[in-house]
């Protein structure tokens, strides 16, 4: 399986600021996703990061709040903009190496606390 790293692993931020999370994979992958896991909750898909084009966002998530980039097949970033305490969550990237029915592997996550 692909080796996935995320930076930062955790951060504490002030409200109104923005944080960019990086996701790096050690091999080229076909699909990359960003999920949010709020405290004590399950995972919710934020968006599909599309290589070379705009991300595809799920209902309830917008580009102005969560801009995403994917410049190549091994790297993506998620920015959490104008943060509020409600954005305190774990943010995880995931990847699929080949077809859409293949296993989705997850990064270690970024733990964000907004004060």
């Amino acid at each position, binding site marked *: 399986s692909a080796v996935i790293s995320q930076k930062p692993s955790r951060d504490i931020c002030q409200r109104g600021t923005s944080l960019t999370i990086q996701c790096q994979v050690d091999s080229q992958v076909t699909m990359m*996703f960003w999920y949010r896991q709020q405290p004590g909750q*399950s*995972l919710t898909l934020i968006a599909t990061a599309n290589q070379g084009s705009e991300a595809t966002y799920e209902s309830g998530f917008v580009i102005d709040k969560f801009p995403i980039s994917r410049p190549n097949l091994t790297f993506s970033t998620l920015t959490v903009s104008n943060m509020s305490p409600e954005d305190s969550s774990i943010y995880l990237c995931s990847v699929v190496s080949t077809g859409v029915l293949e296993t*989705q592997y997850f*990064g270690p996550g970024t*733990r964000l606390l907004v004060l």
Partner: protein
Amino acid sequence: AQSVAQPEDQVNVAEGNPLTVKCTYSVSGNPYLFWYVQYPNRGLQFLLKYITGDNLVKGSYGFEAEFNKSQTSFHLKKPSALVSDSALYFCAVIGSSNTGKLIFGQGTTLQVKP
């Protein structure tokens, strides 16, 4: 709408006893089902999946799951639980075979006591 349900917030078992973590699903079309485990302060680790073929799927760390189409279930099982199996378990289904997007259940905390 596609959905996954894990009816138990927590499952408690004694070490050495068999364990079952329940999952039911609702999808249109063929179900593609997954189990993941999350240890404290860690990301999600893949355990096993059902795409097609045998209803009994074997995965990592001695876990297995049985796909039951008539009951729309995909319960996770292990014959003999270990204390180290204590973690948060998620069942997931691919919501659309065209996109690969996963829909997760709410998670079940497994507590294995010595």
